[in-house]
């Protein structure tokens, strides 16, 4: 892909989400496919036209104008149908066209997108389908890209999206803000989907680094969208954004590492993105209001401590205590492993080993941790654990990284 094509692709991706949201707002969410079609047709026309005439000065405005015309055409076609089938509807031409007038003001784009975010995060749809739908409708990802991110194929993704849209129709989900008393409850679901979206990018199985980074950036963008409204700009929203900033700051450093996510020691600190760390601190401060401590708060604070490069006892003691609390709200094997690693850094090898032996886990991260802990205590046991880890590791890079650890033991 040359630079010109990449720029166009980026523009389309950005505008897709905005335009689909605005058009769906007009037609109702049950006709979301019409909105997608109109936008896709607009992009086709843009590609053809711009190839000959060059890209206009304000490409977004060009797209909006064309989308308006296409929407109006669609509306007129439908009007004829409506007049024949339902003669009782007797709106004047003028009124029809006013109704069909799309509003691409900055405010309406923002409102429509946020409402779309809430609509998609309805509990009626399974979270996997929600992520797919969010990627397609809110982030403008192509079906092929979504398939790649999920390590799936286009057909499966298409089916999944189709079913999700059908659900939106059947459940009569409206493109509007939920009633005030439901916003807080729905917000939890929205935050969770953004969190999953980010994780999908950060820990994705796909090797496509550009795609993974895109996913993370989009999740961050959706999070920031929530900060523009008082009702959704809550401490937990800020905590989630802080968390994403801190993690994203290490993106470049992490790519070259051995993918052993619990071991930060090998990361090249020079590659950490200081601007994102500063943003993270900003949102972390904003999150420290109110009484509610969510897992986003705890994870954001852990990520904050990890963003400090000095390996102090204070740092690891804080990380340990945060993991202790996180486990009480949100147990997962990987959190348990990370907690035990923090215990090792804060309370020493022996204390951590006792706790590690109690964990009933069977994955390569676990044996890697045991290997790390047995090092210097008993190199033979360390080696056998590393070997177990190597056998269970899923990628060649991981296996190679573990082999290096074994080789270091032998000398």
């Amino acid at each position, binding site marked *: 892909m040359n630079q010109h094509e990449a720029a166009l692709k980026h523009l389309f991706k950005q505008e897709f989400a905005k335009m689909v949201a605005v058009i769906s707002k007009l037609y109702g969410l049950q006709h979301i496919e019409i909105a997608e079609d109109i936008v896709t047709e607009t992009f086709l026309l843009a590609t053809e036209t711009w190839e000959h005439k060059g890209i206009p000065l304000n490409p977004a405005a060009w797209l909006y104008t064309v989308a308006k015309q296409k929407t109006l055409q669609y509306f007129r076609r439908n009007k004829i149908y409506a007049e024949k089938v339902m003669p009782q509807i007797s709106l004047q031409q003028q009124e029809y066209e006013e109704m069909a007038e799309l509003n691409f003001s900055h405010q309406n784009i923002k409102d429509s997108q946020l409402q779309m975010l809430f609509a998609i995060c309805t509990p009626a749809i399974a979270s996997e389908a929600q992520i797919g739908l969010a990627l397609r409708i809110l982030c403008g990802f192509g079906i092929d890209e979504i398939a790649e991110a999920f390590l799936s194929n286009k057909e499966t993704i298409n089916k999944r999206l189709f079913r999700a849209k059908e659900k939106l129709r059947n459940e009569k989900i409206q493109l509007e803000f939920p009633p005030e008393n439901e916003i807080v409850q729905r917000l939890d679901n929205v935050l969770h989907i953004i969190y999953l979206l980010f994780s999908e990018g950060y820990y994705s199985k796909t090797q496509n680094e550009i795609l993974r980074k895109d996913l993370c950036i989009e999740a961050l963008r959706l999070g920031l969208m929530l900060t523009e409204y008082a009702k959704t700009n809550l401490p937990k929203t800020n905590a989630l954004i802080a968390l994403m900033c801190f993690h994203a700051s290490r993106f470049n450093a992490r790519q070259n590492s051995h993918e052993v996510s619990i071991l930060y020691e090998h990361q090249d600190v020079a590659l950490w993105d200081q601007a994102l760390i500063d943003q993270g601190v900003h949102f972390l401060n904003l999150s420290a209001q109110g009484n509610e401590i969510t897992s986003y708060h705890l994870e954001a604070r852990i990520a904050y401590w990890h963003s400090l490069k000095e390996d102090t006892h204070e740092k690891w*003691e804080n990380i340990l*205590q945060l993991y*202790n609390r996180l*486990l*009480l709200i949100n*147990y997962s*094997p990987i959190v*348990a492993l990370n907690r035990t690693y923090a215990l090792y850094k804060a309370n020493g090898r022996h204390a951590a080993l006792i706790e590690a032996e*109690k964990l*009933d886990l069977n994955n390569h991260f676990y044996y890697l941790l045991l290997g790390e802990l047995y090092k210097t205590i008993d190199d033979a046991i360390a080696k056998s654990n590393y070997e177990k880890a190597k056998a269970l590791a899923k990628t060649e890079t991981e296996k190679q990284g573990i082999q290096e650890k074994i080789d270091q033991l032998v000398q």
Partner: protein
Amino acid sequence: MNQVNEFVFLFRQPALNQSPEKEEEIHKTWMDWIGGIAAQGKIASNGLHLTPKGSVLKSGGVVTDGPFVEIREILGGFIVVKADNMDDAITLAHGCPAIDAGGSVEIRTAFL
């Protein structure tokens, strides 16, 4: 599938006046101990942690202040853990900071 049972750990220990530094150290010991159980995925509820002061209501409307029994037996709080059986629950209770402080852990089976 194994039937997972819930057990309540009731912590009793002497109520001592500690310096804030010592308090913090004790708090860390407790958090590390509970974190160890949580890391095994065996916490059912983080329960409640109680301050030493309170009142007791007895028949005839008699209200007395604590301590309620012996000084070394003040109920400090409880957690609920998941374990296969009483033996496993007792294993989990080992290392509890209340024991080191001269107190005890009472382990009781919970039922619904």
